[in-house]
């Protein structure tokens, strides 16, 4: 099946920042590129679960309207880093965070941050498809309802738009009132993406979004990610290096809570500058 044409032409939910024409010579090692701007920027981000360090002084800049992949072996801190971007780690008791995460010109780790607003602007798709045990429509409309949108026509329009963007509309248009749990795993995951798109986030965090899916469903999710990057900034955690190579523009490699290397994906997979990266991507460990 081909992706929805409308998902390609979908207008970005937020105005794209203006891009100056001249490019500076070389991006900094942390990936910050003044020309492209930065969607998310961490500085010396250190995180402990109790006394256990999970992130060690991670400094990384995520570029807007691109796909950034975070790879690394289990327990390297890649999910923890991802979940720092929308402060989902707050939910875990005993977490200590130091450093900075800049989003939209502000340090989101500051106590004054409106976490609810942050999470609306930085959406998240989880490893296991986790639709609510509600109808397909109510799943897609959930975030909008939480924002207080009541108007039925408006809800319907927005639900349709987000389902189209998530390339799910044609499969579910006739059964919006059926339970979301009647969908296949891949469809459920696309519904979760649609649910996330409905509140018009700027950044979408994906935590191994295809690891619970079969190859066909995985391919569709990957296609979708490539479609969506025109309008959104996407950060995807994956343990699947082929997937990172297929869908990402830049790749970060993490090990034991440290950011080992962060570079353009093709360069990362052909000529990594770090020995550890090379060892990992050639399958010597991990």
């Amino acid at each position: 099946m081909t992706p929805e044409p409308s998902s390609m032409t979908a207008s970005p939910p937020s105005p794209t920042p203006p891009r100056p024409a001249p490019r500076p010579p070389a991006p900094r090692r942390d990936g910050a590129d003044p020309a492209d701007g930065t969607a998310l920027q961490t500085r010396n981000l250190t995180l402990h679960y109790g006394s256990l360090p999970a992130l060690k002084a991670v400094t990384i800049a995520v570029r807007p309207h691109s796909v950034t992949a975070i790879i690394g072996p289990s327990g390297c801190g890649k999910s923890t880093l991802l979940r720092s971007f929308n402060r989902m780690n707050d939910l875990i008791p005993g977490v200590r965070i130091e450093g900075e995460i800049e989003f939209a010109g502000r340090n989101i780790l500051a106590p004054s941050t409106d976490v609810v607003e942050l999470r609306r602007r930085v959406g998240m798709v989880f490893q296991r498809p986790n639709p609510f045990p509600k109808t397909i429509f109510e799943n897609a409309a959930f975030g909008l309802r939480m924002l207080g949108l009541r108007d039925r026509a408006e809800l319907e329009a927005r639900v349709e738009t987000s389902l189209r963007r998530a390339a799910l509309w044609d499969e579910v248009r006739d059964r919006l009132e059926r339970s979301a749990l009647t969908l296949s795993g891949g469809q459920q995951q696309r519904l979760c993406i649609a649910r996330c798109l409905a509140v018009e986030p700027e950044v979408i965090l994906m935590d191994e979004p295809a690891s619970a899916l079969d190859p066909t469903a995985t391919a569709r999710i990957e296609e979708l990610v490539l479609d969506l990057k025109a309008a959104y900034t996407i950060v995807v955690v994956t343990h699947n290096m082929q997937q990172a190579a297929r869908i990402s523009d830049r790749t970060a490699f993490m090990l034991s809570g440290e950011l080992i290397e962060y570079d353009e994906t093709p360069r990362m997979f052909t000529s990594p500058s770090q020995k550890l990266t090379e060892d990992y991507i050639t399958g010597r460990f991990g």
Partner: protein
Amino acid sequence: MTADALTGRLSRIDKARSYDWTGLACTALTAFAALLVVLMVAVIMGNIAFFGWRTVTWEFLTATPREGMTAGGIFPAIFGTVALVLLMVVALVPFGVGAAIYLHEYARPDAWYTRAVRFSVNNLAGVPSIVFGLFGLGFFIQFLGRHMDRALGLDVVWGQPALMWAALTLALLNLPVVIVTAEEALRTVPREAREASLALGATRWQTIRYVLLPQALPGILTGAILSVSRGAGEVAPILFTGAAYFLPYLPQSPTDQFMELGYHIFVLSTQSPDVDATKPILYGTVLVLLLLTFLLNLTAILLRSRMRARLAGRQ
């Protein structure tokens, strides 16, 4: 152990075994214990059904007691029981679920006040029901009711045994059951559901209201079912707080006294002037109480299974 002793043991294992009398005795004893339960249910149910079914006529269900409760029906008691249990559930579930939400969502697990709440819940569950009855009399009627009357400038309206005070006393008695089952129900909602909601920009309260509670509802209903079964049968808590010995009319408001099946059974079996004449009515009343409890339970169980089906995506 020496090699010889070991060989001795091994040879004993090899030896052809005599019949395993110990095993047989254990099986028989445990089976008897299990059978006893079945027998008790059979005897109680059979006895009541056998002696009671003839009494339970339409007239019995719809008429008021007559001739010193040796004739007539038990409708006021049926009505009173249903009203009592419904009022109790209305008062009980919001408080119980509220406490469960606080314990599960807001309280820090090891804070001293959280432990104090849990300690109280556990101990409340162990308080004998007659003590709840006395508490209801002392607190609700003599303290709260009297002060309400005084503040409102009324004669005795609230400061006397009433349907509402009895329902509240029963609600207190059942509070631990509802708190514990509701908290258990909240705990079974998968973490993913909560995270999904928060990640969409829902507030904590919205997450509780629109994600956790709907998914926990069948479990919460289980607690309500348990409390209804217990509430319909408990006599001690309502003894001083609202149940009436005999009332030829139905309660018109929550401040009225009421007849109740459990208490009516107590009255029939101990206070009747003519024990033999009331015997059929006694059996009939017990049967009705059992059936009513069963019916209330059945309704709630059906409701719960419908909710579960909806949550599981089968409509």
